[in-house]
């Protein structure tokens, strides 16, 4: 075949690769307080602008402004700050423990803490969560003990997953947090099904799910939006646009031509774009979406605009594919610092309290880790009984698995 002519294929532009200067000029911003707040029961086609604009509450001075201000009590804000700081302290420590070879793998949510924490706080305990692998804040807000999370990471004798899942693939039936899958996006339409069942049962619980913008390319994203639209399921579908997949920029998921929130109106679903690092804005938008779902006004697609400040996981090095100091130039800042600034602005927080709190949380993480390791680590200590490998494939263990279990025992002895 001759390929004489020049390729005319379009390729999405990647703003800044290693060696280039960070460039976030492509991020469409709105001023804090500038975006109107539609009625709960407004129809998606009548609020198209929400999928283009960016809902923000906190201004640069740290003031909460505009119609989306959720007017939370200071103590609620302090709880939110605490959850976000705990999430980060937890992430930082687990990252180090992976580097130290104590756990096989880890994924941080650094820079994205407001997404999970503010959203979970805006929901009810009876609402079912279908997370991705980067939503540890949900587990923390739902009160899953650090000890339980850490034992899962360690695949140790107290592991909730009985050693079957990769680290961070948590679940909690009592906490109403669904089992996390290693297969991207699969949880998105499952959440819609859960919400359909809630509606069929006449309950007013809703389901919420999270995927990354890169994963929104998977078929499951389409199935979720379509079924949510057809049955007007009480569900909140969240696309966490942290700008990067692994090495792949969000333009390769369709973000170059249009916002991810804009997919919503395409399916007749409310789509709204929010500053994902603005705790108050994220809370307000989620509260609004939850009220829509609960009152039968339909599903909502929320695009949370944030930035993956850390590596994708412990398996990659961002310096290989994006500008080194990207994160510092991210125009929406850091969610923890921004909420801290706001609390101080309204006189409900101080540098001293902040230091004390982070010290307290680091101590909590450290002591939890100490306790967790007493149940075993990858390398040392008590190990789970390998017999467990054959359980829960089916409710009752079939003949062939019983036989294989016996063979495995014989092998190990």
């Amino acid at each position, binding site marked *: 075949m001759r390929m004489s002519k020049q390729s005319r294929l379009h390729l999405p532009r990647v703003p800044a690769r290693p060696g280039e200067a960070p460039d976030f000029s492509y991020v469409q911003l709105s001023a804090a307080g500038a975006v109107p707040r539609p009625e709960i029961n407004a129809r998606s086609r009548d609020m198209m602008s929400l999928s283009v604009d960016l809902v923000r509450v906190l201004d640069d001075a740290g003031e909460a402004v505009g119609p989306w201000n959720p007017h939370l009590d200071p103590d609620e804000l302090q709880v939110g700050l605490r959850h976000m700081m705990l999430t980060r302290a937890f992430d930082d420590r687990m990252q180090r423990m992976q580097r130290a070879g104590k756990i096989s793998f880890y994924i941080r949510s650094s820079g994205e803490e407001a997404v999970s924490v503010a959203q979970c706080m805006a929901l009810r305990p009876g609402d*079912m969560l*279908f997370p991705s692998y980067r939503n540890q804040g949900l587990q923390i807000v739902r009160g899953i003990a650090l000890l339980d999370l850490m034992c899962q990471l360690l695949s140790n004798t107290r592991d*909730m*997953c*009985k050693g*079957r*899942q990769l680290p961070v*693939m948590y*679940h*909690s*039936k009592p906490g109403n947090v*669904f*089992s996390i*899958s290693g*297969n991207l996006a*699969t949880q998105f*339409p*499952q*959440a*819609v*099904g*859960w*919400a*359909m*069942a*809630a509606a*069929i*049962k006449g309950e007013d619980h809703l*389901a919420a799910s999270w995927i990354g913008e890169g994963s929104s390319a998977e*078929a*499951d994203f*389409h*199935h*979720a939006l*379509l*079924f949510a639209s*057809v049955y007007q399921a009480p569900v909140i579908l969240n696309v966490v646009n942290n700008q990067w997949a692994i090495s792949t920029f969000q333009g390769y998921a369709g973000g170059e031509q249009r916002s991810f929130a804009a997919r919503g109106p395409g399916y007749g679903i409310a789509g709204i774009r929010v500053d994902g690092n603005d705790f108050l804005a994220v809370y307000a938008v989620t509260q609004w979406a939850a009220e829509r779902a609960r009152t039968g006004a339909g599903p909502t697609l929320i695009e949370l605009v944030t930035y993956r400040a850390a590596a994708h996981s412990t398996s990659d090095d961002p310096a290989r594919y994006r500008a080194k100091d990207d994160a510092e130039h991210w125009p929406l800042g850091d969610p923890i610092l921004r909420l801290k600034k706001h609390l101080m602005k309204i006189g409900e927080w101080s540098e001293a309290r902040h230091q004390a709190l982070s010290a307290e949380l680091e101590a909590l993480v450290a002591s939890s880790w100490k306790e967790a390791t007493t149940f075993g680590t990858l390398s040392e200590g008590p190990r789970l009984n390998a017999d467990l490998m054959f*359980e*829960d*494939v*089916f*409710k009752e263990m*079939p*003949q*062939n698995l019983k036989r294989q279990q016996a063979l495995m025992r014989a092998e190990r002895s």
Partner: protein
Amino acid sequence: MASMNMIQALNSAMDIMLGRDPAVVLMGEDIGYFGGVFRATEGLQRKYGEHRVLDTPIAEGGIVATAIGMSVNGLRPVAEIQFADYIYPAFDQICSELARIRYRSAGEFFAPVTIRTPCGGGIRGGQTHSQSPEGIFTHVSGIKVVMPSNPYDAKGLLITSIEDDDPVIFFEPKRLYNGPFDGDPNKPAVPWSTHPKGQVDEGYYKVALGKAEIVRSGSQVTIITYGTMVYVAAAAAAAMNIDAEIIDLRSLVPLDVDTIATSVKKTGRCVIAHEATRFSGFGAEILSIIQEECFWDLEAPIQRVTGWDTPYPHAFEWEYFPGQARVSRALQSVLEPA
């Protein structure tokens, strides 16, 4: 007892389960108002309402995904995939999710979803309305795989599948919907009303998964089969006056190894028959297990009778279909003195 064809028996099973358990919901393409392209759900939406018998978008992946979510929320969805040939868009949700939710959550979550789907050829469906993909799913740990061969079993197995807390893929050999079929398309069709298994208890009853049925006991050779081939095999053996022991597996996962092994140890000869393509078909696993369990008892090589390793061609349906001639040939060769 009433005379039912397989469609009526399946319909009765779903009717009874919708009536007994408010958690049971049916969902699928054209299954609601229309009652399904093969009419298996006829009348059920009218009887139980649009919220129990759901028409869905044409998206098999979305159907299975939402069924999983529903089941995690306490419902027992029975999802119809219109043809087994169209189950592939749901493959990821079935293999990566449905089959693994109990395992990966250490039993905290589970997904009692039943997937019903018509399979097999013999209705001039061409390559996209004739497939028998059951073998593929038997390789996926965590899913049960069932295929009835008659109305009585179809009803009992479907009720058991719906009540089972593990996911079940329920294959329905569409050529058997209206009557047993011995593989000869030129003979007049035989209705289920003339067959004992067409007499079906109108009430609630179960047929256990993992229990094969010896549909004919015999001494010369064991024929292991399921679905459409049960009648083809029986007819071939009868035509040859062979005293064959014929085993209808009914469920492939879990598999009734004891019944298989006991029979082959007795006869020392075995033919395995299914409609699916041969290469890496389920017959290979059956053959392997027998070889492992009954090696010293075998007096001749086990023979596999299957569809050819090609798609199911529209014009050559009967050249493709493993009819009596193919079964006879296999029986002859296993019965030849060594």
